[in-house]
């Protein structure tokens, strides 16, 4: 298939995963990679942005100076209907504004800073596993372990009371669902915004040793408006728990379905082996399965095509991470491969700012859970597991396990 495909041949995005292949990208979309680096997909609103299938072209475009992440520009491929209004987080802005805001919180997520949190994260993980072992079984691993680990960590880091976890987890879940109405999504976003705004107010009155207090201090210094501060809190709270939680639960399911790979983790206490496993699971699972989205600011020649100024771009990292030219036998989960070049955290200046924290959390979890509960097993049939096909972030809603 060369040249411009017929209208009817343009596949829909997001696509549908194949039955029985819950870890693989939708086959109709992954197949586009064989036809070359650039294709078109059709979105919910009928628009047909470019779909960049290959690793090299995804990275080149995500790092391209004429490619914008500004969601308000015409042509940006919007994932779901929007109600408009409300303040935007900096992940949907371009530099210099994006850099200005991001740098205000980036210091809390440096590699060395996060490394100092490892013992506290280990204690959280050990405590939750103690509770699992002392409690009834089977148990839902999402509710009892996968969600609490990153929620406890981000609450501690931000200075958000963990007692409110039902509230922020439920609203986060609504925000990142694909199939809720724009009104429902906006209402959930509004509730979280109000909640964080109130917390920013509390930190202004009574600063503590946490990130939200540092953000509040920027408000006092006149460097940040209060709505910007609250919006930043919303972003960090959602991104800080929902993503890692999905990697924990989906990663555990993937390992249970690949027992030979699980054995590698269960039988090794080498931190390098565990760190490598985390990178490969990130590459293989790609919970952020809705693609990195951008719009071209100028004509760009790439992959034998010309992207015109104003055209939308989707860079599906799940498909870039299955590029056989970069990762041989890409559909195999192989914890021993060097997967460090993956684009699961995106690429370009918007690459995940919390990635050092995600890595340490996942290293502690994957390096502890299966060694402490070596007989961990699914407590349901694999085909009865509810996957987040309707989520902007992929994962499982429930994972009944026993041991």
């Amino acid at each position, binding site marked *: 298939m060369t040249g411009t495909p017929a209208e009817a041949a343009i596949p829909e995005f997001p696509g549908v995963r194949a039955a029985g292949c819950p870890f693989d990208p939708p086959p109709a979309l992954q197949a586009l990679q064989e036809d070359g680096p650039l294709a078109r997909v059709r979105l919910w609103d009928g628009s047909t942005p470019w779909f960049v299938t290959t690793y090299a072209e995804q990275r080149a475009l995500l790092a391209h100076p004429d490619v914008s992440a500004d969601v308000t520009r015409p042509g940006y491929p919007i994932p779901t209907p929007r109600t408009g209004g409300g303040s935007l987080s900096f992940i949907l802005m371009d530099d210099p504004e994006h850099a200005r805001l991001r*740098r205000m919180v980036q*210091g809390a*997520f440096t590699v060395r800073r996060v490394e100092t949190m490892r013992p506290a994260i280990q204690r959280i993980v050990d405590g939750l596993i103690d509770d699992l072992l002392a409690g009834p079984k089977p148990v839902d691993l999402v509710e009892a372990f996968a969600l609490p680990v990153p929620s406890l960590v981000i609450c501690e880091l931000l200075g958000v009371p963990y007692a409110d976890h039902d509230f922020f987890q439920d609203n986060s879940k609504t925000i990142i669902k694909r199939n809720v109405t724009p009104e429902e999504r906006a209402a959930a976003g509004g509730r979280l915004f109000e909640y964080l705004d109130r917390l920013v107010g509390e930190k202004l009155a009574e600063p503590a040793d946490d990130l939200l207090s540092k953000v509040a201090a920027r408000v006092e210094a006149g460097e940040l408006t209060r709505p910007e501060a609250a919006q930043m809190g919303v972003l960090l709270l959602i991104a800080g728990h929902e993503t890692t939680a999905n990697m924990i639960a989906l990663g555990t399911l993937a390992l249970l379905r690949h027992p030979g790979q699980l054995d590698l983790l269960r039988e090794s206490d080498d931190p390098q082996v565990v760190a490598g496993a985390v990178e490969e699971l990130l590459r293989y699972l790609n919970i952020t399965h809705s693609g990195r989205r951008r719009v071209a600011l100028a004509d760009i020649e790439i992959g034998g095509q010309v992207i015109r100024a104003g055209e939308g771009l989707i860079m599906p990292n799940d498909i870039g991470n299955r590029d056989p030219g970069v990762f041989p036998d890409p559909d195999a989960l192989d914890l021993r491969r060097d997967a460090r*070049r993956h684009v699961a955290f995106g690429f370009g200046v918007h690459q995940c700012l919390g990635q050092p924290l995600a890595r340490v959390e996942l290293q502690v979890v994957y390096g502890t859970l299966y060694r402490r509960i070596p007989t961990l097993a699914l407590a349901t049939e694999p085909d009865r597991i509810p996957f987040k096909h309707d989520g902007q972030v992929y994962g499982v809603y429930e994972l009944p396990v026993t041991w």
Partner: protein
Amino acid sequence: MKITVDEEKCCGAGQCVLLAPDVFDQREEDGIVLLLEPEPAADRHAVVREAAAVCPAGAIEASEIEAREIGASENEAGEDA
């Protein structure tokens, strides 16, 4: 090998520190790159090359990589010094 870093471009993702903590660090206040060792020993060259290749912002240049845009090539990592 001579390394230069661009603090303006840097987005503080920390990939370089993860790979070569003896060569790169991050400023505590905003996570921006700090170059600890601009002329690393030969046994660090491969990992510095990898750090330059995975830097999402293209903020690291190692002088022996020339005539090619850092980050644009997928084969930098693992090439010999």
